[in-house]
Each structure stands twice: as structure tokens, then as C-alpha cells.
């Protein structure tokens, strides 16, 4: 049908891209995000919202399974692409768009539930391993039965097993947080990084002259993700743009004014302060971590010698899992965004559980 053709072509000029970043592929993720920003293509927030599934980096077995499940959840028309080499981002996106524009497949799913759809497992967007819970009670749909547990008011209420990540907006690459939810309060948590250490961290061999720029870009990236989780799209977009400028070769001194304006705006916001106040996140609270990041960002563009963190350590996933227990979901997202664990550095299979 002609109208359908026309709509597809119109839509293909601005597809929603679901970016699945893999641990160790930060460089590819940044290149993709920069290109998406340049084109004005929005990032999808969930598989249901996506036209293009873009996998940045080489997926290991666990993540390949997750990517497969996410792919099954995506509505047609859909395209799946992989970006492993930073250079071919633009071409890959172009070809994805042209595939969408000339999408012809019939849509059998309109008639009845196709086999694919049956595999969708609800909300986790991947990483759903419910096995072991539920006490062997078989539920229709193969879903696990919720457990009972005491809530923070002392009522025995249902607990739901949910895996957060690894495909969530503004979420550390490859991180999975398996939580027990009661309402939206996390009662137990377990953190894990899927397929760690595959991309190989490229952080070690950055030349010294690049340090300030990369430090600033890294802080801007973290800030953008934090603001994204906090639901403040405007400064988050600005932080992303500055980050892209830096990575595209701008001198830190050249963007200094803009960075200072951004940090000042974030610091000034009484609303943000009110929202992040009193959320503990391990050894430092969320508000303190945000202040640290802003200060480090200012220092980096001011040309101050970046504080050497010493040999980069892998993030403490056990501490992260501990930090989100007792938080409601929105606060937990802020905690993860404030801690911002660098999953590139996780070397081998690590998991941590906290009750």
C-alpha cells in the first residue's frame, strides 16, 4: 500500500534506536551516541519503543542471549545492527534507516500470537532468571509465584523478583541488578556484570596529554546519565553535547565556559538538591557523590592536574547491591547512576548478594 510506504519512509528519517552497550565497548557506545545526537535520532527507552537495535561491541554468551530476547520483544518494523569498529557508525546507521524505509515483511502477528511473542517475559528487558524461586508452584504463563516478605511497615506482602538491566536507559553497560521488589521498594539485591572484560579496557594506554580531556569527557558522560535518570533532559543533553565535542577533539579550555555554566546550573537547582537529599549510596550519599563529580568536572576543564585515582580498581558490586537495598526504585536508579560503576574494569565473573 502506498500510504504505508510513505509512512515508513517518513518514519525512517528518525528511527528510535535502542542502544545496548557491552562492557568494554565504551568507545563504541560514545561514538554511537555522538552520531545519534548529531542526527537528532532519539534513544529508545524500552524495546517496545525501538526501531533499531544497536549493539555496541562484541557480545559474550550471556549478553548475546539478552540481546536475542530484547530483539524478540521489539515490534516490527525493526532492524538489528552491530557496531564494533568506531569508524563505521555513520554507515551502519544509514543502512539501518534504509532497511526500515523499505520494510516489506508481512505482519503475521496481527492475526494471532506468533511463537515469538510468547517468549516475552515481561518487564526485565533481558536477564530474567527466575529459576529457584517460587517454591515449585507452576503458574500459568510460566511466571514465578511471588514470595511473601515483611515490608517496611511490617506488613507481610508479596515480593516480586525483577532483574534490572542490562538494557535500561542510562544504565551501566552489562550490569544486572537482580532485586526483590515489594511495591517499588527493593528488599534484596544482587549485582552482576554479564560477560565482563571482553572488550578489554583501553583506559590504561591513554597518553598523558589526553588525560584532562578524557577525564572531563568521562565526568560529563556520568553527569549526563545521572541527570537523565533524574529526569532532567535539558542539561543532560547539554552535557552529552559537550562530551561529544571534547571527544571530537575540542580542547578542554575551549569548552570551559560552557562546562562551568552547566555545573553552575546543576549546583544551583534547588529542586535537584531536594530530590537527591538524604539518599544513602554506600560510603558517600548520592548528593555528595554528585557534588564530587561536579567538582572533578570543573577541575578537569580548568586544567588542574587530575587527581590520580591510582591504579583503576574494579567497582565494588557487593557494595552497590548493599546500597540499593531499602531504596525505592527511583532512588535506586539514582544510587546506581551516582555510583556509576565502570563495568569496563570488571575482570572476571563476579557477583554479590545482599539480603
Amino acid at each position: 500500500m502506498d500510504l504505508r510506504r510513505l509512512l515508513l519512509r517518513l518514519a525512517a528519517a528518525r528511527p528510535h534506536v535502542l542502544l545496548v552497550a557491552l562492557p568494554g565497548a565504551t568507545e563504541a557506545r560514545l561514538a554511537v551516541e555522538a552520531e545519534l545526537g548529531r542526527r537528532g535520532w532519539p534513544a529508545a527507552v524500552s524495546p517496545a519503543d525501538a526501531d533499531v537495535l544497536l549493539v555496541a561491541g562484541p557480545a559474550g554468551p550471556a549478553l548475546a542471549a539478552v540481546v536475542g530476547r530484547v530483539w524478540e520483544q521489539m515490534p516490527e518494523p525493526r532492524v538489528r545492527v552491530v557496531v564494533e569498529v568506531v569508524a563505521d557508525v555513520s554507515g551502519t546507521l544509514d543502512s539501518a534507516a534504509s532497511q526500515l524505509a523499505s520494510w516489506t515483511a508481512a505482519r503475521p502477528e496481527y492475526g494471532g500470537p506468533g511463537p515469538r511473542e510468547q517468549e516475552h517475559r515481561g518487564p526485565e528487558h533481558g536477564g530474567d532468571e527466575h529459576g529457584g524461586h517460587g517454591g515449585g508452584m507452576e503458574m500459568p504463563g510460566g511466571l514465578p509465584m511471588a514470595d511473601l516478605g515483611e515490608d517496611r511497615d511490617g506488613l507481610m506482602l508479596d515480593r516480586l523478583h525483577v532483574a534490572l538491566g542490562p538494557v535500561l536507559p542510562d544504565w551501566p553497560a552489562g550490569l544486572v541488578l537482580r532485586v526483590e521488589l515489594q511495591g517499588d521498594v527493593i528488599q534484596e539485591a544482587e549485582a552482576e556484570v554479564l560477560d565482563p572484560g571482553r572488550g578489554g579496557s583501553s583506559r590504561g594506554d591513554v597518553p598523558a596529554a589526553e588525560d584532562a580531556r578524557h577525564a572531563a569527557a568521562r565526568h560529563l558522560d556520568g553527569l549526563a546519565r545521572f541527570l537523565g535518570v533524574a529526569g532532567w533532559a535539558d542539561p543532560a543533553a547539554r552535557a552529552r553535547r559537550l562530551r561529544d565535542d571534547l571527544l571530537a577533539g575540542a580542547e578542554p579550555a575551549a569548552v570551559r565556559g560552557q562546562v562551568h555554566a552547566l555545573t553552575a546550573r546543576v549546583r544551583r537547582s534547588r529542586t535537584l538538591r531536594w530530590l537527591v537529599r538524604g539518599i544513602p549510596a554506600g560510603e558517600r550519599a548520592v548528593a555528595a557523590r554528585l557534588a564530587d563529580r561536579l567538582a572533578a568536572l570543573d577541575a578537569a576543564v580548568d586544567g588542574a592536574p587530575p587527581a590520580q585515582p591510582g591504579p583503576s580498581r574494579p567497582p565494588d558490586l557487593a557494595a552497590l547491591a548493599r546500597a540499593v537495598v531499602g531504596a525505592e526504585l527511583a532512588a535506586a536508579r539514582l544510587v546506581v547512576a551516582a555510583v556509576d560503576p565502570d563495568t569496563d574494569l570488571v575482570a572476571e565473573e563476579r557477583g554479590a548478594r545482599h539480603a
Partner: protein
Amino acid sequence: MTVLFWILAVVAVVAGFAVFRLNSMAQVTFALLASFLAVAGLVMLLGLGYLGVVIVLMMVIEMVIMAVFMVMYMMNPAGLMPMAMYHNKSGSMAIAVGTFAVLAAGILLTDWPTRRGAPAPDQTFALGEALMGGQMLTMMTLGVTLFATIVGTVVLATARGRYDRFGDDLDRRRADDPAGGGPG
């Protein structure tokens, strides 16, 4: 008008019956809501626009809150497992049918008086005047009852008192609550 009456009346009764027939708790709540909305439509049909709209407003709020509580307290709220939680089903049915028969007989056999007077032009105004005038006592009673309900329900539903929140000597400056959001 008559068509509208029949549609709304049938929706009200069928939705009401569905409340005890559907499997899913959430659907049960919204079936009840549909019954209320149909009755609200009937009330509007009778010229009580304000009350009809108020019923819509209140019942939507009430049913959504009800849905939340139901999901909280009931097993498998999504209706994954068929739900059958009856006791004394046949007895109840007999009583209900008997009641309906008696009521229907009364309705059909009574020699209803003829209509007297005409509705005031502005029913909303008339109702307001009545509640603030002749029926003031009703209004005051409702107000006091509602206030008592607020206090009573809070006392019943929470397990924590002020000694839990402010310490044994009530000298804590900020209340010790599991979550913020309370007036402390």
C-alpha cells in the same frame, strides 16, 4: 431517552453481576466501576447532573484505590489462577433471589402515588441550598463522621504510634519513619 435507559440499566446490572463472575481482581474492580458509571448515567438521565458527575468522580477514585488494595492483599491478583472464594454459595444465591423477588413484587404491586411538583430549574443550587439550609444537620453529621473515619482508619491501619516515631520521651526532632513523606 428510553433507549439510553435500557442500555445503561443493562450495563449496570450485567457489570454488577460480572463483579462476582470474573476471575481477575483488577477486572472485577473495573466491572464494579462500570456498574457505578452506568448508574451515574441513569442519575444524570433523571436530571441530577451534579450528583451524576460527582458519582463518576468519587467512584473512579474509590475503585482505583480499591484496585491497589486488592492487588496488595489478594493472591495472584492478575487472575492467573482462576479464583473461587465462596462460602455458602447456594444459600446466598437463594437469599439474593428471594430478596429480589420480594422487592420486585413490592415494586410491581404497590400503587405508587402520582408525581407531584416539578424539579427546581437548577438542581445543583437547590441541593446546595438544602444542604446548607434545611438539611444542615445532615451535612454536619456527614462532616463529623468523615473526620472520625479519617482518624479511626489511620489509627487502625498503622502499627506505629508517636512513641515509635519520636522516641519514648517524644523528644526526637525529626520523626523516625521508614520513608519520608509524612508530616514530621
